[in-house]
């Protein structure tokens, strides 16, 4: 019964489609698709990947850093001036330098530089003797102040 109905339906309307396709479309379509696939997803050949292949990038990076470190080390120690290169001056050189520059100073300022500083924090010699005397005689300092 159902098959009869289906047959009726098919005979009434048919199974052909009312569309048509541009001529040669199906001949050119595989080429177009192949081209599109190749450009968007190119085939990458699988190769036997060795341990070296996987580590190559990391090793290169490490080697680069090591080379940089060596260069920096060498630059720091080779280019830095050492004591060996310093000019050693003799006594005669110092005298000559002083003689050349001595006229830059006036006499007063030289004396000021040479004169020893006043020792304000130390007592004069006679004051120390007096204190010793008072201690020896067991004289009270306030009594002394009162008498004078």
């Amino acid at each position: 019964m159902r098959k009869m109905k289906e047959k009726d339906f098919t005979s009434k309307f048919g199974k052909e489609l009312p569309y048509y396709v541009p001529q040669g479309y199906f001949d050119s379509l595989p080429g177009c698709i192949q081209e599109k696939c190749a450009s968007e997803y190119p085939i990458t050949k699988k190769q036997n990947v060795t341990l070296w292949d996987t580590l190559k990038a990391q090793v290169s990076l490490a080697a680069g850093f090591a080379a940089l470190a060596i260069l920096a080390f060498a630059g720091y120690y080779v280019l830095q001036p050492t004591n060996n290169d310093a000019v050693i001056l003799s006594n005669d050189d110092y005298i000559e330098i002083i003689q050349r520059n001595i006229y830059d100073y006036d006499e007063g300022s030289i004396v000021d530089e040479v004169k020893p500083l006043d020792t304000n924090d130390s007592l004069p010699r006679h004051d120390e003797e007096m204190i010793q005397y008072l201690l020896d005689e067991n004289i009270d300092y306030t009594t002394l102040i009162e008498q004078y």
Partner: protein
Amino acid sequence: MSHMDDKELLCMFKQEDTRSYAFNLIVRKYQERLYWHIRKIVVSHDDTDDVIQNTFLKVWKALDGFREDSQLFTWLYRIATNEALTFLKKKRNRLFLPLVDVEQQLISTLETSPTLNGDEIKVRLQKAILTLPEKQKIVFNMKYFDELKYEEISEILGTSVGALKASYHHAVKKIEKLMEDD
């Protein structure tokens, strides 16, 4: 050559040297069936051309992962159906159109298509099919025009055979009614 067994084609595709050649054979073998399947959904030739190219592009990308749990052609049909429906969805979103207007647009494309070739009753049938809900339309096309078995359609759409039979039945009834009213 294009009548090679699917298993042989898949075997060839898995080998790097014959990969492109096998893919070319797969395209040649299934292009027409997929073209007409898509064309019935999107109507215009240019849109069908875009969709079929995208379909095969996806196939090229995913064929390596095809597990052969299903038949190759049902897998291809599934991709083509999804691509065609996605295309219509994008069109609808792009033009901010409701579903009914998209159907109306497809019908007007059908009427004005320069690549239309057939008598009036065939065009009327296509118009009637285009008014069906999406699922019924696809089920009807696969069953009536492509003569696929319900089991195969079930594999493609992931719907039970019982539900497919009901969909087809409803579709036929609606089409008959529309054709009588027209």
